[in-house]
Structures are given as C-alpha cells and as structure tokens.
C-alpha cells in the first residue's frame, strides 16, 4: 500500500493532484463527470473584485503539444462568486478548496482576498500575479520582485489562511521573485503560469487570437515547469506547487522530484475531462513501478 498523502501549508491532501485555476471552473462542471472529492483539492477560476467579461474571441489557438488561451480573467466578480458559485461548489465538493485571486492593484488583491478569507471552505488563497492576458494588471506584479512582495504583504494582512503566490515564467530571474514573495510572508509558491505566446493565421495574415498574444500551456511547456520548480524549490524554504504541462502520473512524480509538494493539472483537463481522475488512479501504480512508498519522501528528491 503506497501513501499518496502530502501536506500543503498545514492542510493534508489525500493526494497531490490539484486541477489548476481556469481549467476547472468552480468544480461543478466536472462533478457531473466524476466524484471530484477524489482530488487533493482544486484551484477555482481566477476571481477579481469586479465582474469581468474578459477578452474578445477567438480566445483559443492550437499549438504543437499545447494551446494558447487569452480568456482574460472572465469571472462574475468576488461577490457573485461567494453568493452563487461557492454554494454550488459546496454541494459537489466537501474538501477545502483553493481560492484563486487576481487584481489590478494591491488594494484590489487585498479586498478580494479579504472577502474570500471569510469563506470556511477556502483552505488556501492562491494569488495570481502572473496572468499574461490582461493589460496593465496581473503579470506586472509578478515580473518585479518589489511589486510581488507588496501584493504578498497586502494579502497576508487580510487573511489567516495560507497564501500561495502564483508566479509567471515570463521573467529573467524567477528565484529573486520567489524569494521576494517568501520575504513578504508567502506560505507557498505556485508555478508556472502560462508562457506568453502567439500564433498567426497564414491565410488571413492576422493573429489567431483576438488579443494577439496569450498564455501558452500544455505538454510542450513541461520541461520549463520542471526547471523552474527545481530552481525555486531549492532557493526558498516554503512549499512549491508545481504545474505546467502535466498530463500523467509520471509527470507528477517528476515535478515532485524537482521540488513540488503538490502538482496542478491545467490544460490537459480541457482535452481529457477525466485527466485528474486518470492521474489519481494511475499514481499508485506508477509509484510502485518506481518503488516509491510515500510521495512525501520524494519531494525535492533531486539535488
């Protein structure tokens, strides 16, 4: 019998598998397909203070072994999330959920986090300082250590729940940003968000995506995720939630060896709606194959 349990910032997870924000809605779409209580937890759709429609369509483009999205943080706003989405989520999920928060100013991040802090079911607050799809917001906080620290400090002030900062890979020095978040009081780091990408339609000679650029995700970015998780996990003393192109139990183990305490699955959910269920089912088999008795023991196994 293998042990798949991990501890993320003081909360025990039955397994390290977490559907990533933006690929799992508020859970109930997937609850129609399988019992989502089998998940470690999930990170719900990025939530902002006010409702957002997001970017014009097309928002999606195919890439080799991946995709680009430029949804642009479409969400009903934090009040509607609390009033309408979380009650629906509660009906299909009885574990702690990860609240994903985005914003356009330090105050906005703090406000949205303070509202979600009052929700019992929220176990962690994952602060997205890395969305590539919104102009003048999001990612700019995640590309500068000082701003990333300011957001971290502001959110930490309004919540007692563990705060994870979700970082962008679109930076020259990921370690300095992760360390700034740790210095600001972050309880963990999530990475990587999508990489900035672009596709052009040869027939129309126009970008495929209305927003021109978008976030590149999917299997193709997995090696970048492994590298950045490895760099950050070896530089900070707080847990790292690894993500980026994960599509198998083997990928989960590889990211954990690189330094991840838990692993998020993103784009692959959109291709295979049963992706997380399949990975959770496969995990004990793959653990036995590689003679792993406890997942906790392999975290940061690669020096």
């Amino acid at each position, binding site marked *: 019998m293998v042990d798949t349990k991990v501890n993320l910032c003081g909360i025990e997870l039955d397994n390290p598998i977490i559907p990533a924000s933006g690929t799992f809605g508020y859970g109930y779409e997937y609850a129609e397909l399988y019992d989502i209580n089998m998940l470690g937890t999930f990170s719900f759709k990025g939530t902002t203070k006010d409702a957002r429609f997001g970017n014009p369509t097309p928002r999606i483009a195919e890439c080799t072994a991946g995709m680009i999205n430029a949804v642009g943080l479409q969400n009903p706003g934090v009040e509607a999330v609390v009033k309408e989405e979380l009650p629906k989520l509660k009906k299909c999920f009885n574990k702690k959920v990860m609240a994903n928060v985005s914003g356009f100013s330090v105050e906005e991040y703090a406000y949205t986090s303070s509202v979600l802090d009052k929700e019992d079911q929220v176990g962690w607050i994952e602060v997205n300082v890395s969305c590539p799809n919104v102009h003048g917001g999001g990612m700019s906080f995640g590309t500068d250590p000082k701003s990333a620290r300011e957001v971290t400090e502001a959110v930490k002030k309004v919540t007692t729940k563990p705060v994870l900062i979700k970082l962008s890979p679109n930076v020259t020095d990921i370690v300095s940003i992760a360390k700034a978040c740790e210095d600001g009081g972050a309880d963990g780091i999530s990475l990587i968000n999508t990489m900035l990408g672009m596709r052009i339609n040869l027939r129309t000679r126009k970008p495929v995506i209305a927003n021109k650029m978008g976030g590149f995700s999917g299997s193709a970015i997995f090696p970048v995720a492994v590298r950045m998780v490895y760099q950050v996990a070896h530089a900070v003393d707080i847990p790292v939630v690894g993500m980026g192109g994960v599509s198998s139990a083997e990928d989960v183990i590889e990211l954990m060896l690189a330094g991840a305490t838990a692993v998020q699955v993103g784009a692959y959910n*959109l291709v295979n709606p049963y992706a997380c269920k399949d990975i959770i089912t496969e995990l004990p088999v793959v653990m036995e194959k590689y003679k792993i008795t406890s997942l906790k023991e392999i975290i940061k196994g690669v020096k």
Partner: protein
Amino acid sequence: MKQGIFKILSNTPLNASVYKMVLSGDTSAITNPGQFVNIKIDGLFLRRPISVNDVDGDKLTIIYKVVGKGTEIMSTLTDGVLDVLTGLGNGYDLSLAGDRPLLIGGGVGVPPLYMLAKKLIAKNKQVTVILGFNTKDEIFYEDEFKALGAKVFVTTVDGSYGIKGFVTDALKDTDCTYFYTCGPEPMLKAVYNATTIDGECSFEERMGCGFGACMGCSCKTKYGNKRICKDGPVLKKGEIIW
C-alpha cells in the same frame, strides 16, 4: 456529456472539401438536434468540435468541411477508432417550432439541420428547408432533406443552381411559424434581420474544452455572458447581441 470510443464505419467526400463520417459507439448522451461532439485527433492537442448530423441507434453521423489541420487529418481516416466527447451543447428547442418550422442552413451549417428536420417531421410538423451554397458544386443533402418529406429551397450565390442569391432571397416564398438556422455568422445575422418570425441561431466559435470549463468561447447576450459550448451553441433570437 459522455466520453466514448467510436469506431469509424465510413468517411466519404460529399464534395471537394466536405466529408461525411459515420461512426458507431455509445450515442446515448446525444439528446437533442443541434448538439455537437468533440473529437480527439492523434497528433493534435485540442479536440475538434463538429456538429451532429444524425444519430440512428449506435450510429453517429457527422459532416465536416476541411478547413485546417484537424479536419484535414480527419478526412484521411478510413478505419480505426476515435475518442469522442458526446452530448455537448444545448441544441435546438423543438417545443417552439409551431406547425410550420423553417430551417435555414448555409454551407457547412447545413448538417445539424438534418437531424432537426427528422425530429420535427416525426412530430408531424410541416418543415420547410432553405439550403444556401456558393455554387452548384458545393451542394449536398438536398435529396436527403427531400426524402424526409421537407419542402426544400436551394440558393446559390452565383446562380448556378436553384434560386440565385443568399438564403434570405428564398424567404419570400415561405410562410412559416418559427426559424432554426446554422451557418456562418454573417448569414445568421442576415436571417435574424430578414425574418419577422421568432427563431434561434446556432453559433460557431473556437473552443478550448467544449464542455463549459475554460471560458474560451464566451459571448455576451441580452441575458448575461454565455458559453457557446455549454449554454449554446444555439441562442434564441431574443437574446442575441450582434
């Protein structure tokens, strides 16, 4: 929604770029005409959403146009199996048809109207169909609609067959209670503007997941934001914002 493995029974061209593929598998999740399926294709990351042309027991028929890499690969398949998500989207609302529904399809928007016509005729409705194409060589399914017992008008933009012009040029010859349409967005808009009766339009959009999770295909309606894949692809005339 259901995920299933479907066997390819046949895949034949209907014209230079449109193919008809017949699959067999568990079709039980397909409950309404106007729904679509989302097909995994080897070598590509995202699935490809294709409208349902017809369901007969475990047989699923789709008709698709080769427009890019995904449909190009599909057109070369002759046997084997496909991983298909079925029962996606809302489909048409048959309860609003009235006695004399009008079905208007443009190009590759024609296929989903076939199953709709079949269901409406089974309910003893007097169905009129307008099929619009660019030119004679592109026409498909005229005989199939006639065989169902529908009154069929065909329009071609270049006048090489049937009524010369757009689908809206055939409207004056119809006396109908409600319209159902599917086709390119400019055609949907033209139908919306040219009709005095109520109706509904089926929209197309680039999708991520196809089942409502990713917000890749959102649109604004008079009643708030909707996802083309989950809350659509069919929108009622009264809610559409162009």
